[in-house]
């Protein structure tokens, strides 16, 4: 790690917390002056401020550096001797920026939704702060602290803005995640008590074989608990697909990223023998999950499920890409994830808009886009980008990830590719469903719904430009 005494990372983590403070003090009434968007403005301002700080950070770090940079250390406990360490590399910077963009899009998506907006924004900013801390964590304890701390804001958001009828599933979802967090905690305590090492050096710690099996098993289970992995995907899928609030949906679907990121950080480049059975199991489970979820998404009529299946398949793709015995792909995964998070957030915002508009028309959502050109254009663009056409950094960077997987095991890669094709076609299929009325009795003029407003359209155009810029040069913001 390259040591530095800056405070940029602390600022990045603190800004959302400051946002939480300001948001909790802001009035959220539906007054004339604020139009009920006071808290929302605080949220948006917070994210924009943090994006500026992130940009400054990006200018300060070495893009090609493999070590963590701008390291900040805090002595937390003496007995046991725990030091919290934060650092950043280009991969985590990309993820943090993408999450900020995604949450920003989510906030734009809820601008007209006054229902408990204060709670929504506060919890979202809290989540943002926690996940930012998670992505900056460089030692095992801060890693765990933020890993578990992301759970609560998510639970609150899903509980308040999700489907109240599925509380039982929500409990399971939380407990399942908590179980993972507890296992991680135990594993980390064992590691810590044996030797206090940084995350990247965990595989170096020599443990009793049984304990080592447990420790790695716990780490795997902990991170996999965040990803809707088969056969436990049901809880996460049931919770996620019933969220109508776009910001909450986006946040809920950022959660698997914590699992993927955790495994990326923990998994050693040269895996010890002890990991072989876990890796094998992980691969089998991952591929089964991809195929099963993509098939279910393909046969499901609910666009939220389709989107969920698409996201899951891609998350697992990134995970498998990251677990290959090379770190050359990490940058590509970062660039791809950057575009991916923006794309899915934008799609979700549009879907949520259409879902709301659907309530206003009696003809359902089939062909709902046919008279709203802006929405149609935006959704088409993002879905085409999502399926991998050359509109974002997904396109070429995914190619390299596929290359890695194909070179590793072509049969495994074939299954992965089938799953990706299925989930992408599901999205495309729904795009057509939304674009064209299929019932001959319905005239397109009968479908009278509101389009997105011009300012929002401009925001989407801005994000499209960002995506295209990321395709032309993923380091667009550095030059």
């Amino acid at each position, binding site marked *: 790690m390259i040591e530095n005494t800056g405070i940029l990372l602390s600022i990045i983590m603190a800004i959302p917390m400051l946002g939480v403070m300001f948001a909790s003090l802001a009035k959220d009434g539906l007054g004339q002056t604020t139009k009920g968007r006071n808290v929302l403005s605080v949220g948006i301002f917070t994210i924009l401020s943090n994006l500026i700080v992130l940009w400054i950070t990006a200018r300060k770090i070495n893009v090609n550096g493999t070590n963590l940079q701008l390291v900040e250390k805090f002595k937390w406990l003496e007995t046991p001797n725990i030091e919290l360490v934060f650092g950043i590399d280009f991969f985590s910077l990309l993820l943090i920026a993408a999450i900020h963009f995604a949450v920003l899009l989510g906030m734009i998506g809820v601008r007209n939704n006054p229902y408990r907006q204060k709670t929504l924004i506060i919890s979202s900013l809290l989540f943002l702060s926690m996940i930012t801390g998670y992505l900056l964590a460089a030692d095992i304890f801060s890693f765990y602290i933020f890993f578990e701390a992301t759970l609560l804001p998510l639970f609150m958001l899903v509980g308040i803005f999700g489907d109240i009828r599925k509380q039982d599933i929500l409990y399971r979802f939380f407990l399942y995640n908590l179980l993972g967090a507890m296992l991680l905690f135990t594993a980390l*305590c064992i590691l810590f008590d044996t030797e206090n090492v940084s995350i990247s050096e965990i595989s170096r710690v020599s443990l009793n074989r049984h304990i080592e099996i447990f420790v790695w098993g716990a780490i795997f289970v902990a991170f996999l608990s965040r990803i809707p992995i088969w056969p436990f995907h049901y809880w996460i899928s049931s919770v996620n697909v019933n969220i109508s609030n776009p910001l909450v949906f986006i946040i809920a679907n950022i959660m698997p990223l914590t699992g993927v990121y955790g495994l990326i950080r923990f998994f050693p480049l040269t895996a010890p023998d002890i990991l072989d059975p876990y890796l094998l199991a992980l691969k089998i489970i991952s591929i089964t999950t991809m195929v099963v979820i993509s098939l279910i998404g393909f046969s499901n009529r609910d666009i939220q499920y389709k989107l969920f299946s698409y996201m899951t398949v891609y998350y697992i793709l990134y995970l498998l890409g990251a677990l290959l015995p090379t770190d050359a792909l990490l940058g590509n995964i970062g660039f791809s994830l950057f575009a991916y998070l923006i794309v899915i957030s934008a799609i979700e915002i549009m879907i949520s808009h259409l879902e709301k508009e659907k309530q206003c028309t009696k003809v359902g959502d089939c062909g709902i886009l046919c008279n709203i050109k802006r929405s149609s254009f935006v959704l088409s663009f993002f879905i085409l980008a999502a399926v991998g056409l050359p509109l974002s950094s997904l396109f070429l960077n995914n190619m390299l990830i596929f290359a890695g997987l194909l070179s590793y095991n072509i049969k495994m890669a074939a299954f992965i590719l089938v799953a990706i094709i299925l989930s992408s076609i599901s999205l495309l299929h729904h795009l057509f469903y939304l674009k064209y009325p299929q019932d001959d009795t319905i005239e397109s003029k009968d479908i009278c719904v509101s389009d997105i407003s011009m300012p929002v359209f401009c925001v989407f155009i801005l994000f499209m430009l960002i995506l295209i810029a990321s395709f032309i040069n993923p380091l667009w913001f550095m030059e």
Partner: protein
Amino acid sequence: MLNDYIALIPELILFLGLICMRLIKLVRKNNTPKTFYTISRLFLFFGAVMTAIFYNQNVGDYLYNNLFTTLFKMLIYIFTFIWGYLSLKRFTSKNMPSFTFYNAVLFNTLCFSVAISTHNLLILFLGLSLGFWTGINLIKMEKEPHELNGNGVYSAFSFLFILAFACGVGIFYYYTKSFNYGAIERTLAIKNLLIWQYYLAFSLIMCGILYMMSVAPFHFWFANAVGNAILPVAGYITIIPIFAYFACMVNVIVNAFYPILGWFNITFMCFGIFSIFIGAIGANSESNLRKIFAYSGLYYIGVTILALFPINDNNLVSAFIYLLVYIVAFCGIYTIFYGYRSRGDYLIELDDIKGVATQRPFLSVALLIFMISLIGTPPLLGFLGKLSVINSMIVGKEFVLVGAILVAMLILVYAYLKIITVVYFEARNKSFDEVDKGVYICMLINIILILIAIINPKYLMHDVEMMLVAVFK
């Protein structure tokens, strides 16, 4: 001569307070609930100050004060002080007499203070038994006989266990001719002279203390007692006595029974495991808020017991940290119970607080923070407790216990989730009363404590360790 007894000043002040309170009750006719609170506050304050001043003064062979005892006594003073203040809100709002409560509180403080410091089995027995019995009797406060369903049974069992405690003390006196810890320890240290009666007496004393702590399987009285009692009493018996029982148990074990402790560790482990599972399942089986937290308290007591044994300085620190963290959170939760009122009634059923977050958001956020702290989720103080306990168990290679704690925690969290659901996710079906500012102040102090302590816990951990290890000297 006087110097030998100077350390008794705090206890003497409390005793004076009791007399003063009694006199005022007899003499003054127009007493308000605040009158007795003011008296108890005054004497508690001075008692605390004197305790701090004479933190290392002894009274012959009877009372040994050191950092360990002072720590627990001060905690009892502080929490009693806070709880006394909050309880006043209840007595004032209902305009009910407060003498019984504050008198008992003062008396209990006196008993616990003596019991913590003592190195004499008889005084220990008297201090704890009287304190416990006073608590049991407090449950009847403001209750009609028909409302005290099952109380007789608990009283009978309580009497039985106090009797067992007394028998244990008696057996030791019979064979060692002394109540002094040191003398008993010296006797027990000679392995050739160990007879089964010592083991029996030790078991009886431990069972007595564990019963008072309501450790499973001797827990059956606690939840119903807390559920039936009025809020000040329920809060008091949940929060304060546990410090005294814990301190006394550690003190007596370390200074008197240490030579024969080994064989009993497995009992502690079994009791601990029972407690965590019964606590977790019990919390899920209830719809009464206080009972839910009473059972969850059982879980925390269980973890504390598991962490404490086999006793050593590391385990003591981790068990204490865990205990402190959970009591702080419980104190916060009971403070919130003072805020959950509708039409003047304190709400105790889950269904009563549906959607309260929409009308009382700050209270509900506080409840959430305390529950999250109890779960041990970072970055709240509860995490520190969890860290210290799990870490100490892992150091001791007790992986099975860690597994049991985590599984039981998952079951317990399910109960917490139900509370969060009711408070946040369900629609409100009633209007909630305005909350007293005092409740907010106490709650805020508690939250700040939870937040600040976690940001920089090294001082807390370091100083606490230094104070706790004094018991071994």
